[in-house]
Every structure is written in C-alpha cells, then in structure tokens.
C-alpha cells in the first residue's frame, strides 16, 4: 500500500475545494456558485447514503429519491403546521425516513437481483403518488417552505455561508459514519453478504436482519439530505421523489466509483457540474448526457475512482 496515490491526491484537492468554496464565493462576489454547491453537497450526501447499501451492501435500490421527499415533506409539513423548530423538524424527518426504510426494506429484501431493483422503484413511485395526493400540502404543485428550520440562534439557515457549512458538516459526518460502519464487524458482515450470501448464512449470520439494518441506516441518512434539500430550495414537491431522481443518484454513485468512500462525492460534483455546464451550452443538454452515460457504463469500469486508480498504477 503506497502512501501517495493519484486518487488520494485528487480526493484531497476536491475536499479542500469544498471547504474553501465560500471563501472564493465571498472574494469573487459570485453568489450563484455557493447556491449551486450547496445543492451539490446535499445530493452528494444522498449519493453517499445510497453507496452504503449499493456499493458496500450490494443492494441495488432504485427508489432512493423517496427519502429525499420524505425528509423534505417532514420539514415542509411541520413548517406548514406552525412547528418551525429544527430540533423537532430534523428528528421527525430522520424518524420518518427510518420508518419508511424499515417497512420497504422488510418487504423488498425478500427478493433479490432485478426484482429488488424493480420493487424499490415501485415503492418510490407509490410514495410519489401519495405525495401528489396530499391536497392539504399542495398536491402535485408542491409545498412552499416559507421559513427555514429554526435552530434558535445556534445556526442561521437563512445565511448562505452558515447553511453551506452545515450541509458540508453533515456530509463529512455521514462519510465518517460510513467509514466507521464499513470497517466495523457489522460492516464486514454486510460486505460478506454482498459477495456470498449463502456462505454467510451457512456460517450462521442472519442475512436479512443485517441487510435490513444497513438499509434503514442508509435511508435515514438520505432523509437528512431531504430535510436539507427542502431548506435549500424553500420548496418541496413530489418531483423530488420521481424515479428519474433515483436514477440520477445511482448515476452519481456509479460515476464516482461504487463501493469507495469518496466516490459518491466525486460523482455528485462531476455529474451536477456537467449538467450545469451542458445546460449552459445547449438547451438540449440531455442529448449529450444520455449517450455519455452509456459510454461511461460501457468503458468506464469502476467510475472516476477506478480510472484514477488505474492512472496511479501507470
């Protein structure tokens, strides 16, 4: 194991860039870039949570955007009902996501492979339709969050810089947690189940229980991203749960490198910057993005982290 590798260097530069970004934004007076990167950091958090079950756990969830919606609606609905305190909103968002993950996971984990991909997709669509039917909370049109979560003087979410650092802190916290999980006994069991479930069961591990716990942890993390996202856009609508959003999250994970700690952040940064960049060149950016995805799948094994690793080995 070498101390210095290309992928490590690139990761370090990227993380330093994320930490120093508000400074750049402040000096250059470019406020837009801070707003853009707040979104990127939040979606990187969602992608990292998906990576925990997809990359390390081998559970290909195609309905991860549902948690973005659940976390967001928890904040939006409580705000609508006059409960503005973040100390209530955020725990409720996390608990709701965990509960949803527990129910969905218990049902979905009875299946495997492509059935699992499809059943998670179908459940997320179900959540989407439920949100569309919430007439009291805007239905199809979505719900405007008039006041961001109030942390009573501890941190002011309406301040761009403070909010950005809150999101970044959440992202680093989640990455740290994932790192601890992956290297714990629990994490090793989950990774063992990814490689060979039958063998792990034969040794005596209750496979489904381990996978379900991992699934719930991941969903709860993504619910946090949802609560942050609703605060960022001051708005939550069923569209955040639409299945293409789940697809976007999957793409970020694969693009960055599945099963690597920092890959999802890399993937989110590259994917969202590319989307931003292409949409500035042409209105028809998806015309380029679509085939690009196809090429990445066909030729870019292991995502960006994999490619950097190959560069490092020469």
């Amino acid at each position, binding site marked *: 194991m070498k101390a210095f590798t290309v992928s490590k260097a690139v990761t370090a530069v990227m993380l330093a860039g994320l930490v120093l970004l508000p400074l750049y934004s402040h000096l250059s007076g470019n406020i837009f870039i801070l707003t853009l990167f707040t979104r990127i950091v939040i979606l990187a958090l969602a992608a990292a949570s998906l990576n925990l079950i997809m990359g390390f756990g081998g559970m290909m969830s195609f309905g991860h955007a549902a948690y973005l919606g659940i976390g967001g609606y928890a904040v939006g609905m409580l705000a609508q009902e006059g409960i503005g305190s973040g100390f209530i909103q955020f725990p409720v968002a996390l608990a709701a996501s965990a509960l949803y993950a527990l129910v969905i996971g218990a049902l979905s984990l009875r299946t495997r492979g492509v059935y699992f991909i499809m059943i998670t997709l179908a459940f997320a669509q179900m959540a989407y339709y439920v949100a569309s039917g919430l007439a009291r909370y805007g239905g199809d049109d979505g719900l405007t969050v008039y006041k961001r979560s109030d942390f009573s003087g501890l941190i002011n979410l309406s301040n761009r810089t403070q909010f950005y650092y809150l999101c970044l802190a959440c992202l680093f916290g989640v990455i740290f947690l994932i790192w601890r999980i992956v290297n714990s006994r629990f994490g090793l069991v989950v990774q063992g189940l990814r490689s060979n479930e039958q063998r792990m069961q034969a040794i005596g591990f209750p496979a489904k229980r381990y996978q379900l716990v991992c699934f719930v942890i991941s969903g709860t993390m993504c619910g946090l991203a949802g609560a942050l996202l609703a605060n960022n856009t001051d708005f939550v609508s069923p569209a955040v749960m639409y299945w293409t959003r789940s697809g976007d999250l999957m793409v970020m994970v694969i693009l960055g490198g599945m099963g690597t700690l920092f890959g999802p952040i890399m993937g989110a940064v590259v994917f969202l910057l590319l989307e931003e960049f292409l949409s500035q060149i042409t209105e028809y950016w998806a*015309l380029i993005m679509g085939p690009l995805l196809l090429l990445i799948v066909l030729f870019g094994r292991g995502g960006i982290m994999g490619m950097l690793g190959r560069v490092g080995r020469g």
Partner: protein
Amino acid sequence: MLLVVEQFLNGLQFGLLLFLLAAGLTLVFGIMDLVNLAHGSLYMMGAYFAATFAAWTGSFLLGALLALGATLVLGIVLEMSALRHLYGRDHLDHVLATFGLILFFNEAVRLIWGPAGLALPLPVWLTVPVPILPGIHYPAYRLAIIAVALLVALLLYLGVMRTRIGMLIRAGASNREMIGALGINIKLLYTLVFGLGAALAGLAGLMQAPILTVQIGMGENILILAFVIIVIGGIGSIRGAFLAAIFVGMIDTLGRAFLPNLLRQVLSGAAASTAAPALSSMLIYLLMAIVLVVRPEGLFPANRR
C-alpha cells in the same frame, strides 16, 4: 350497470395494452437477461411515429402500419448499436445505460417534434359507439384495441409455442450456451427478439395515442406499470405477464372508478375525496407488495433452476 360494464371493458382494454408492453419487456429479460428501461421510450416513439405518419399519409391505418415498421427498425438499430454490448453485464449496468437512453430519446423528441404534445385524430368509422349489449354502447376504437391486442397475444402464443423460431427462442431462454453450441446464430436471434419487443411496445404506444395526447415522458409512467406486471407475473414468463397485465389493468381502472364511492360510505366526504386518488394509485403497488411477500419470484416464475 352501464358504468360497471363500461369500466370493466376499460379495465380489460388497459390491461391488454399493458400486456403488449410487458410482453416485450419480459421476452427481452427472459431471453437476453437484459433490463431495458428504454422500453417506455420505444412506446413513446411508436406514438410519435404514428402521429407523424398519419398526418403525412392522411390515413390512420397506413400511419399505424408505417409506425409499426419504424419502431421495429428503431429497435433493431438500437440493439445492434448499443444494447448488444450490454449482454452478460451486470443488471446495474443495464439500468444505467438504458436510463441514459431515456434521457437521449426524450431530448431527441423535444428537438424534433418540439415540447408541445401531438394529437392523433381517429378516422370517423372508429369513433362511433357500438351497441354491445341491449342499451349499452361502447366506443368502437376501444373495442378495436381489445380485438387487436387479443389477436397479437394469440399470435405471440402460437409463435412462441408452435413455430421453429419460437422453439429457438424458448431454447435460448433456458440455455444460452447450448443453443449457440448447436449452431444457432444467437446474435441474429437476439436482434430479432429485441426488434419484436420494440414493435410490440410501438404497437401499444400507437394504439394508446388517440386516447391520450402524444407527449414527452408518456412512456415512463406506463413503463413502471409494465415492470410491476412482470414482477407480479414472474420475470420471463409471457403467460404470467398476460394474466398479471389483465389483473393490474382491471384493478387500476376499477379502483379509480369505484373506490371514491366505496370510501365515501365508510369515511366522511372530505376525508374520502382526499384519500381516494392516492389510495387508488397505490392499489397496484400494494398488490405487488402482497404478491412478493407471498411469492417472491412472482406468480408464474418462468424457469426454476
């Protein structure tokens, strides 16, 4: 009574339409082991082709035939240029690559046909209501959809169970390497199956087009229904897809039609009218959840090994 018969036929019609879509999906999955999210895009392309060709030729039937051919060709080109390279890869790769194709198709349609939807007008002889029972009339076009879809289902069954090509397809589904070793041109067979699936999706799209507007993204919602169907029916099983499609079509249509009234008898008016739309769109997903809890492999698993 009138309403019940009408909704029953609507459910049957919707179910048969879903079957056309699900059959292609399940064939491609059963034989090539390929998860094709872009199947909904082929459905959309069928509808756009039909609207365009019908406007050119001035004839609905001619337009529909041309559109069918065009989706077949499109499917074959798609298979040869892109999807062929995905066989044998991880399912996740399929999902991502075909997700990219959806983005591409949606954007290409926006570029060519513009963001506004198209309409596909029906010829007069298909718009008249037909008496089916004394005192009950039903639109001729919906009856025509039922007839065409049933005919296609029958042809598909005979084609797969009674012809040489069908035999090869079934053989390919149960053991890929073996039929290659026996000197069958697998590549050609795969291309053919994919083209067939594309044509079925295109047929579903062009038949649905006069009922709904032809618009971008029309294939996505119905694609998810088709996935639900093949999961319920058992992936790779055409018989399962047929039964599950009718079942899902019925439950969805009847649920939307009668659930609000049923709920109103149990709940108060306001609560019922908010709960009903959400509950009726959830029905089929609940059904799927129940099926998967009881039989994780679907109702009719294609090949047990």
